[in-house]
Every structure is written in structure tokens, then in C-alpha cells.
């Protein structure tokens, strides 16, 4: 049974430029692993790619139900691509719930691979279906490839010593093998991964490898498909060394690098929360880089521990998502008032309250910029994609230590869990920003400022520099002061210091003509979709320019001049228009048009293109 047969060569091989594939199954079916393996293999093969995992918040929602459906979408291409694709070309549905939840997104005439073994009466009932969608015409107009994956896996594993339940769990690798065959992908990267993953359980390695190969061979032998496809490697990626990267991993690495460039020990205080936990987990595994992590009792303790670490002369860092940000606000005020560096990371998720923890939204922008008691300004930066998160995290560290201020770094669910090829930077090209602690007591004042507006950093342990500091208003000596003029002056200092950060950040580049009827202004994880939308609109003969903000507070210099050359500036964001509000407040002279979407799902390229045309015509 385990014999591998060479795939026949008689089926036609067709070249495609790009494919969008979506794996969907029960959250227990291992669809995220399947998707990640397909991604990794395609990356190593040399495609450009972008991914969109979409999983339920519950670890194991009741099996077979619609809320339990877990999906993973991936676009891979021989061309430079920017998004995981609007509509899948092919949907792999492991059960009825996965089929009905995802079918509506599939391209007209698209292909559905269905696991017919999971369409028994009971399965249909769990998915709340009266009729079998395989038989009631639901799939009319699609190309359906029925495969009883449940049965095929057990067939392939007759000789395996595993229990039936464990054998069944290999069905995602059978499915993966089938897709590898269809898209002519090599099996080796996944086989290597399996050996590493199940090092301690060789019988699992063997079973999964057999399932993978059986799936691969089935494509060929059973002639399920009319032919194979190939998506050649892309030659559009710039030369360099690449690695497939997810946003949270890039942030974790950026924190290590940023702290090193500052010459400080990174000290993370964190409390687990979706979708930020993997930053804590990654950093905890980087101990040999000198990283200190503390899983604290809540988000308040987490930021307070980070502030304490900065007080001691380390780089305090805290990572969380929206609900955790809410808890951290009072402590942020302390770091703002005492003027300590601190990197605060918010991986945004859909809100309010607990909201939709695994879905994407950009609705914490106003909270980041303004959400504290008192006039309490902090610089706010946002990653746009996994491949810029490393560099922007380093920049957050730089701003924090150079300006002695907390910095909020925003990311979101889409960046955190999405993956794309990352052209690895030349580490030497980064300019370090080593911190010099003040040790000379001569004429020292705790709140004397340098040309950037930053006060000097003195570490406890330094002789003759003892100081007391806190959240009460203080004068230049650091002594508590309720003096009216002093409070105005200190408030101005804090404000000006943050405003001065603008001097140290680049003006974003324009994509397209530097004047015209419409500028698309985005921020955060919409970058790929907006890039794609603008390209598509241009192919349709529409003239439109695009700009993307990474540094949001303060705004970079030069925006007013750029904006003044456009009749309208459309601001697409996954919230109710938060950036638009800030822009209107800061630059009321321009015509900002909000374009908002709050579904927990990213924009579709088609939606943005339609809106562009609509605005230009209207």
C-alpha cells in the first residue's frame, strides 16, 4: 500500500500566473497546518504569495458546526502580488459546514474539492443542513471534485500501527498531497517538516508521509482532475535572500534587533491575548539573545513591569490586543509623565469589548492616539505587512529611547497571522542608536532636555544621582509641583517632544502621479489590497495615486503639500473612519472621503476599485 508510484506523464500540464486556494474544514481538521505547509512549500519553490488565515476564536467549537469552520486562504503567483486574493479559484471543503460557509466566496465556475466521506446524515445535521448540498443543486455551476478523503486515508494507512482515530487525523496531509499534485509542488519541504515536528513519534511521521504521498498519487492515478497546473516561480521579486514571514514573528525579531541597536536588554511584560500571544511566546524562546520575558498576572501588571524595567535602564516592552490596551491606559500615562521609553504593541482585533478576537479591524487608532486621561501624547506607528514589521518595530524602539517616550506600535490580525516572502534586510544597513545613560551629577536636573526635547536617562545604581520620580506633575528638577505655569510648560514640553518625532521620520512616497483627482491614503494592513486596487483601476484607465502611512502620530512632514495637489483624498480603513477624523482635525483644508468597512474581514480589491470609480464619477 505504501508503494509510491511515479505520477503518469500523460495528463496535461497547464501554466497559470496565479492561483487563489482556500482550505476549509473543522477547526480540528488541521487546516491551518495544511495552509501553512502549502505556503512554505510555495515560498521555497519561489512564488510570491500572501495568506489569510481565518479561524474561529474557540479552540474546538463543536465539531462539524458552522462556527467551528477554520479556513486558510493563500494566493501564490509567478508575478508580484499584494493580497491573498478576493475570491478563491479552488475551495477544499473537508465537511458540509466548511462547504456552505465558504462557497459564496468562490469564483464563478471555480473548483470545489469535497471530502464526500464527511457528508453523512449526521454531518449534515451538525451543519444545520436539511438537504445534502452535494445533491441538491447547490454546487451547480462549479467544478466539483468528489473524493472520499476519510476512506482513502484509512486505505492508505491499513498497515500503520496507529489507532483509527489517529489515522483519520492524517487526512489533512492526504488533502495537502492532493493539492501538491494538482499544482505540481514538491513534497520534500513538508516531509522534512514532519520529521522535525514529530521527532519523538516516528510512527506519526510515517503515517503522515504515507498520507501525503497517497494524496499526491491519487491526483495522478485516479484522474480526479483533468490535468495539472503549474505556477512558475516569480522573477519579479528583487534579488535577495527571502524567508516566509508572519507579522508577529517579525515584530518579535524587530524587538530583539531594536533593543540590540539601543544597546539595551529587552524586557517584555505581557499577558496572553489573541492575536498578540505569539509575540510573548516567540520572545520567550529568544532567551539566548538576552531577552527577558515575564508573563504577568494581567495587562496592567505587564505594562507596569515593563515600565519598572525601563526605570532600571532596560528597554521595557509590552504586547497585547485591544482589551489589554484598555487596561494599560493608566500606566501609559505614568510612562508619559515620568518620561520613560516603552514600546507598546497592540495587535488589533475586531471590537468593541471582546468583539471578534480572531477577526481583523483597525479600530484602535483613536484609542492609540488619544485614549488616555490628561493631555498625554505618544507617537503611534503602524505596521502594514509582515515584511515591514521588522523595520518598523526597530523604529519604534529608536523613537522610544531617543525621545524618552512610550511608543505605540499597531498591527492587526491580518498582519499577525498572514504570511508573505520577506526579503531579509542587511542588518549592517541599520544605523544603531545606542543609549548613553547619564552618570555625571554636575548641574544635573532630572527634567532638563536635549535638542530633541528628551530628558536624560539615569539608572538606579548610579552614585550621587539619586532621584525620585512619578506621575505627579513635576518641575525641571523633578520635584513635585502644582505651580500653574509649570504645568502649562511641562504639558507643552510633552506635546512638543512628541511633535518633534516628525523630524526623524520620512515622508511616505507617492505611488502614481503627484497630482490629480484622487489620492488613496491608507494605513496598516490594507496596503496590499490598496496597491492591487490602484493597479487594477489604472489597468481600467483610471488615474489614481496612492500613499500609505506608517507613522501616524505625529504625521510625517510634507503631507499638507502633497495633499494640496489632489481634489479628493479617499481614506479606506477597517473602522468607522478614525484616520479620517484625525486628518480632518489636523488638516481641515483638504477633502477627505472616508471609506469604511467593519466586517472583521479585509477589504476586497473589487470593492476598493468600485469605490474609486464611484468617487471619480460622482
Amino acid at each position, binding site marked *: 500500500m505504501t508503494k509510491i508510484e511515479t505520477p503518469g506523464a500523460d495528463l496535461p500540464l497547464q501554466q497559470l500566473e496565479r492561483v487563489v486556494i482556500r482550505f476549509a474544514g473543522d477547526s480540528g481538521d488541521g487546516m491551518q497546518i495544511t495552509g501553512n505547509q502549502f505556503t512554505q512549500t510555495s515560498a521555497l519553490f519561489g512564488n510570491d504569495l500572501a495568506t489569510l488565515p481565518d479561524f474561529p476564536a474557540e479552540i474546538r467549537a463543536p465539531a462539524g458546526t458552522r462556527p467551528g469552520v477554520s479556513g486558510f486562504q493563500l494566493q501564490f503567483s509567478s508575478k508580484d502580488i499584494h493580497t491573498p486574493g478576493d475570491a478563491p479559484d479552488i475551495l477544499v471543503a473537508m465537511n458540509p459546514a466548511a462547504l456552505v460557509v465558504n462557497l459564496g466566496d468562490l469564483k464563478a465556475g471555480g473548483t470545489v474539492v469535497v471530502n464526500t466521506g464527511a457528508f453523512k446524515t449526521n454531518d449534515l445535521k451538525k451543519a444545520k443542513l436539511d438537504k445534502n448540498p452535494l445533491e441538491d443543486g447547490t454546487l451547480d455551476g462549479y467544478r466539483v471534485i468528489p473524493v472520499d478523503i476519510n476512506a482513502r486515508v484509512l486505505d492508505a494507512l491499513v498497515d500503520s500501527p496507529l489507532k483509527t482515530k489517529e489515522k483519520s487525523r492524517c487526512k489533512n496531509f492526504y488533502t495537502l498531497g492532493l493539492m501538491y499534485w494538482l499544482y505540481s509542488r514538491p513534497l520534500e519541504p513538508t516531509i522534512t517538516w514532519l520529521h522535525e515536528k514529530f521527532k519523538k513519534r516516528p510512527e506519526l511521521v510515517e503515517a503522515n508521509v504515507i498520507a501525503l504521498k497517497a494524496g499526491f498519487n491519487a491526483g495522478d492515478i485516479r484522474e480526479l482532475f483533468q490535468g495539472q497546473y503549474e505556477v512558475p516561480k516569480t522573477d519579479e521579486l528583487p534579488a535577495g535572500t527571502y524567508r516566509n514571514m508572519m507579522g508577529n514573528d517579525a515584530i518579535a525579531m524587530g524587538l530583539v534587533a531594536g533593543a540590540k541597536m539601543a544597546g539595551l536588554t529587552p524586557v517584555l511584560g505581557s499577558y496572553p491575548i489573541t492575536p498578540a500571544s505569539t509575540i510573548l511566546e516567540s520572545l520567550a524562546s529568544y532567551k539566548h539573545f538576552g531577552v527577558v520575558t515575564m508573563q*504577568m498576572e494581567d495587562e496592567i501588571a505587564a505594562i507596569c513591569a515593563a515600565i519598572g524595567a525601563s*526605570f532600571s535602564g532596560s528597554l521595557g516592552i509590552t504586547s497585547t490586543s485591544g482589551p489589554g490596551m484598555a487596561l494599560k491606559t493608566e500606566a501609559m500615562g505614568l510612562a508619559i509623565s515620568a518620561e520613560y521609553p516603552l514600546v507598546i504593541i497592540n495587535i488589533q482585533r475586531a471590537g468593541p469589548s471582546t468583539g471578534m478576537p480572531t477577526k481583523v479591524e483597525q479600530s484602535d487608532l483613536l484609542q492609540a492616539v488619544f485614549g488616555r486621561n490628561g493631555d498625554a501624547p505618544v507617537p503611534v506607528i503602524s505596521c502594514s505587512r509582515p515584511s515591514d514589521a521588522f523595520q518598523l518595530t526597530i523604529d519604534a524602539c529608536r523613537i522610544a529611547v531617543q525621545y524618552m517616550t512610550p511608543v505605540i506600535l499597531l498591527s492587526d490580525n491580518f498582519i499577525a497571522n498572514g504570511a508573505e516572502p520577506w526579503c531579509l534586510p542587511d542588518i549592517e544597513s541599520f544605523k544603531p542608536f545606542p543609549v548613553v545613560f547619564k552618570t555625571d551629577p554636575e548641574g544635573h536636573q532630572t527634567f532638563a532636555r536635549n535638542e530633541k526635547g528628551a530628558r536624560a536617562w539615569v539608572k538606579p545604581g548610579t552614585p550621587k544621582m539619586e532621584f525620585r520620580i512619578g506621575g505627579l506633575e513635576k518641575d525641571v528638577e523633578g520635584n513635585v509641583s502644582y505651580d500653574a505655569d509649570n504645568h502649562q510648560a511641562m504639558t507643552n514640553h510633552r506635546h512638543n517632544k512628541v511633535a518633534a518625532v516628525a523630524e526623524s521620520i520620512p515622508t511616505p512616497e507617492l505611488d502614481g502621479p503627484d497630482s490629480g483627482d484622487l489620492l488613496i491614503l491608507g494605513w496598516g494592513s490594507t496596503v496590499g489590497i490598496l496597491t492591487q486596487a490602484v493597479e487594477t483601476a489604472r489597468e481600467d484607465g483610471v488615474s489614481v495615486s496612492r500613499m500609505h502611512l506608517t507613522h501616524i502620530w505625529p504625521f510625517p512632514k510634507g503631507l499638507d503639500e502633497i495633499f494640496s495637489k489632489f481634489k479628493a483624498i479617499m481614506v479606506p480603513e477597517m473602522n468607522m473612519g478614525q484616520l479620517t477624523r484625525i486628518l480632518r482635525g489636523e488638516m481641515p483644508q483638504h477633502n477627505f472621503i472616508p471609506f469604511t468597512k467593519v466586517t472583521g474581514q479585509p477589504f476586497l480589491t473589487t470593492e476598493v476599485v468600485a469605490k474609486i470609480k464611484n468617487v471619480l464619477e460622482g
Partner: protein
Amino acid sequence: MTDTATTTLTKKDFVSDQEVRWCPGCGDYAILAAMQKYMADSGADPANTVFVSGIGCSSRFPYYMNTYGFHTIHGRAPAVATGVKVANPDLSVWIVTGDGDALSIGGNHLAHILRRNLNVNILLFNNEIYGLTKGQYSPTSPVGTKKKSTPLGSVDRPFNPIAFALGCNATFVARSVDTDAKHLTRIFAAADAHQGTSFIEILQNCVIFNKDFYNKVVDRSVRADMTVDLVPGEKIVYGADKDKGLRFTASGLDTCGVDDAEVWDPSTATVSQAFAISQLDTDPDTPKPLGIFRAVDAQIYDESVREQVEEAVSAKGEGKIEDLVYSGDCWTVG
């Protein structure tokens, strides 16, 4: 570390240039003076000493110590101190907190710092009242406390801070009184010497909002009979003539003569004896225990956190950014 520790400092060297702003007669003054003197006498290095506090009258303490000081936010001093100490385990870190700060808003952090056994000393100034916010009852006020926010008397049962700390598996737990500088100093020294979290509840007089609340136990006229000092290695005896003792029985604790009195050992493996003693003052006729309830050794959080880092560095070699970035499955284009 500096060499100032070798030159002799006096109490004055630990007095900051800030004007002390507590109400005249406040118990905080005496605690401050005792601490400044203890620091000088024990040869503490001001440059290496940090006082971290929350918010409250008591939490103003760091401003008056000529050491490093961090006046943080309400209830969070234990969390801030955790970062301070983990980032630099060489610092001598003291937390100053109040009954509201530590046991209301900061109860969670207090529980966790005690559980973790961070190597710091906590001074909880218990005046059984919210001083700074002008006299509302606190989580240590007895049932029936009539204050502005409880005109008909409070109806919630108070925390016993000692029992709270013991319940959190604290490794050093003690109680002292603001007015007894000698006792305070002895407890400071024991706490300072203890490796791990040292928790000291200090009964503190708020002359404005809860004046002399503790007089029924600590007033000179009754103190000998109404308090019992737990001194490690000594018999548990009290009374003006030291003629009354305590001994452990199957059901808990019993009064007895001096001969039968138990020799106090706060380092026993189980916490049950300390806990039984902590419950003494629920009975108005039995003495309120002071002194050292518990002193045991356990794994220390800050040390362990740093050790893991050091071990990882020595096992894998100090990682470089390049190694981190250029790892995993990479491929080359062009």
C-alpha cells in the same frame, strides 16, 4: 555597586531635600525616621536602593528618602517593582503601600508578587482607612466602620493582611507598629536579610481619619497584654510580666503558662501554625500577634528569570541579530 557603602553614612544622608507633607502626628513620620536610621545603621548604599510605591499618603514615602524612588500608580507598585528588580537584580528594592493600595486596587498584584517570591521588601502601612482620599473605610476596616461613604457602618468583612500574605504562600511575613522604632528596626533587618519577598504589615496611626484606631492593642497601658511578639527561637510569651504563653494544640492554639509555651519557629514547612496565630486577634480578648510569622526559603523569581537567560546564552552562545533573521527556511532570488 559603589564604594559609598564602605564610608559611613548617617541617618541624615538618607533624608531627601523634600519637605515632608504628612499631617502632623501621622504615624508615617515615625516609620520614615526608623527607615532612614535603619538604612544608615545597616550600611545601605543609597545609590543602590530603590523605593517603589503606589498611591496614597503612605505612598509619598519615596519622595522623602534620599535614595532612588518611583511613585507609581494606585495599587501597581508590586508590578512596577517586579520590572525594576528583574531588570536589575542587584538593586535593593523596597515597596511602600497602604491598606487600600495593596489590598483593594492592588490586591491582585500583591497576591502575585508574594506567590512569585520576588526578592524585595514590602511595607504595608495599615491605618485601616483611605487617608489620601479623606477617610473612606478600607478593606482592612472592621465591619461597622462608620465613615463618609459608610454612614450606617460598613457591612463587608475585612482582610487580615497577615492571613492574606500567608495564604499567598509568602516566604516572609511580619507585623510591626509605627510607634515602636526598636521593633520596627528589628523587623526591617530581618526582612532585609531574607531572600525572597518580605512582607511587613505596619500598624499606622492616621490621626486625621482613624485616630488611635489601634490603641486598644498598642497603647502603652495595654500593649504588653494585648500584643504578643513572635520572635524566632524564643518562647511565645506575653504580658507585662511575661507570664502568659501560647501553645499549639490539635485544634489550633491555646493560652498556657510560660513553661508550656511553644518555642516559635517561623520556618516550619507548613503554614498552619502561622495561620492559626494570625487568627488570634479575631478574638478581642486574645493578644494581637506582632513579629515574624513566617520566614522560609523558596525559589526566587528575579534570580530564576535571569538564570534562564544566562543559561540559554551559555548553552547556545549569545545570539546575533543576523542569526535570528537569517534562520528558518530561506531561499535566494537572483
